[in-house]
């Protein structure tokens, strides 16, 4: 049973395409992407800027829906869901880690981490308890009462990870998480992600930096909205 469950993908993308209407012109974001992500995966999505990485991440994160193709999370087809249902899915199944942190500046670290629980309708004491757990998991519970704009970049990103973790989502989605960090903080952060993955978290890491992508167990390459092999990628990149 255990292995059968493991073989069932957590996320399944089939022929997923995304076309943006920019004025009269249609801009292709993604073309026919097939991708399976399994529980416990640590996947890096690599590609240059404008390659469609962000589009893929938005679709994986249920911030956007594909123009065509099928996307399922735990077997639930996402494309047909209402905005309300997508919000619920983001709340329960996805934890975002952004390049620019995206913390609420006038909230304390703890309140930032509590935010997903707030929209999940978790009671106050329980929220505080779980937020502290998450902060402890990334080693920053000592900063829980600091306003987020008083924290350093590395601390901010740790708080953001704690926020992503707090509702125990199926997937952690990190978009260039080290992009705004110094190399030491970046390494620390990748170590945290690796440890979370070792503890069972499924992680998708989007980056244009190979040295960062290497910390993942598996790398997929994306160019012009298509998934390509590493050989093709190297060829096209020259």
């Amino acid at each position, binding site marked *: 049973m255990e292995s059968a469950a493991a073989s069932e993908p957590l996320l399944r993308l089939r022929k997923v395409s995304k076309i943006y209407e920019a004025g009269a012109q249609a801009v292709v974001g993604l073309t026919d992407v097939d991708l399976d992500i399994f529980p416990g995966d640590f996947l890096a999505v690599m590609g240059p800027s404008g390659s469609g990485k962000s589009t893929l991440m938005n679709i994986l994160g249920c*911030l956007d829906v594909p123009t065509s193709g099928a996307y399922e999370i735990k077997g639930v087809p996402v494309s047909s869901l209402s905005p309300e249902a997508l*919000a619920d899915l983001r709340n329960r199944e996805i934890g975002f880690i952004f390049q620019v942190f995206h913390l609420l500046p*006038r909230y304390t670290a703890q309140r930032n981490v509590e935010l*997903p629980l707030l*929209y999940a309708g978790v009671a106050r004491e329980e929220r505080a308890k779980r937020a502290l757990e998450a902060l402890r998991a990334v080693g920053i519970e000592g900063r829980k009462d600091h306003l987020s704009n008083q924290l350093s970049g590395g601390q901010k990103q740790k708080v953001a990870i704690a926020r992503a973790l707090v509702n125990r989502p199926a997937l952690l989605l990190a978009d260039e998480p080290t992009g705004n960090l110094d190399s030491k903080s970046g390494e620390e952060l990748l170590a945290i992600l690796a440890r979370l993955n070792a503890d069972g978290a499924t992680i998708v890491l989007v980056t244009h930096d190979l040295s960062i992508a290497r910390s993942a167990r598996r790398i997929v390459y994306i160019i012009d909205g298509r998934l390509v092999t590493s050989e093709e990628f190297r060829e096209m990149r020259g």
Partner: protein
Amino acid sequence: MSPLEFVRVALDSLRTNRLRSALTMLGVIIGVAAVILLVALGQGTKNYVEEQFAGLGANILIVTPGKVETKGGPPIIGAAKHKLTLDDSRILEKKGYLFSGVAPVVFGAAEVRLASRSRNVTVLGVTKEFSDVRNIHVEVGNFVTDSDVEAKRRVCMLGRTVKRELFGNANALGQTVKISGARFRVMGVMERKGVSLGFDIDDIVFIPVRTAMDIFDTDALLEILLSVRNKNDIDSGKELARSLLFKNHNRHEDFTITNQAAMLSSLFTILDTLTYVLGGIAAISLLVGGIGIMNIMLVTVKERTNEIGIRKAVGARDRDILLQFLLESTTLSAAGGIGGMLLGTLGAGIIRLTVPKLPVAIPPWAIVLAFTFSVFVGIFFGVYPARKAAALHPIEALRYE
């Protein structure tokens, strides 16, 4: 998200922009205060008029000599009596089956003297009915009786002020005073009534009507007061009195019957209307305050686009965002409403202190209405910005810096 959390979030974001929130609220504060203050002024004016006419029953008709012509033309000279007499009063008493009281009044001014103290007062010649009809009663002693009138007794009832000026704290009952040089026995002291229409009711001396006619050497009445037994019969009572007097005056209508209560009630209607109009004008400023709220909420939504994106990314539904901003605008307007209520009440208190003659009063409905309206303004003008916020696409919102 629980309602309490929404309130917390709303208060948080209002606190971060204290000055802006305060200025936005000011619009509502001024609006609500203006509504309350103007309504209080209108109500105060009404109370003032009401006080002045206090004691005048709603079922009173007043017959006065002479005809107030609404049409032009020369006055009628000839057989007209041109005055009211006790004969008229008797007719009304005998045949006026709709009246519970008929009170003829003779008016005069005289000097009242007790030893060396004297005072010039209004002297009213009345009958026993006057007390009930006009709702003025003796506090101690007795009022004019029928036998006092028939026997033309020289008895008097002193108003509060007259009694105090002549007797001080001493007992006045049974004492003798001189009115226009004639000796009168004090039979009663009237209860305190105060000033009505600038006329000090406590500065009057009452004597029997026939005695007054003798003293002032007249048979003409100032007026005849009629109290109609049943309020609904006011109009038919007026018609009855008119026809009785018409006949008694040789078919001349040389008298006027007024229903002061009816005049008052139409005056009150005008004052009420005035109050509503004032309140309505003030409400316009509340509306302007609402536009201020909408304006600032639009700015807020724009400024916090990124925050909206973050909230949506972590699972806020459109409804959550809508409610959050709606609650923020409503909190602004409700807080402004409370501030306006305080300011309005304070202003009314200051008017009361500086102009004691004007009994300003804030009717509870004005407070409830002004507050409800201010909350409604917050919701109404908050809906558009809140909808705008809720409709933001999470990706666009996250990208917005």
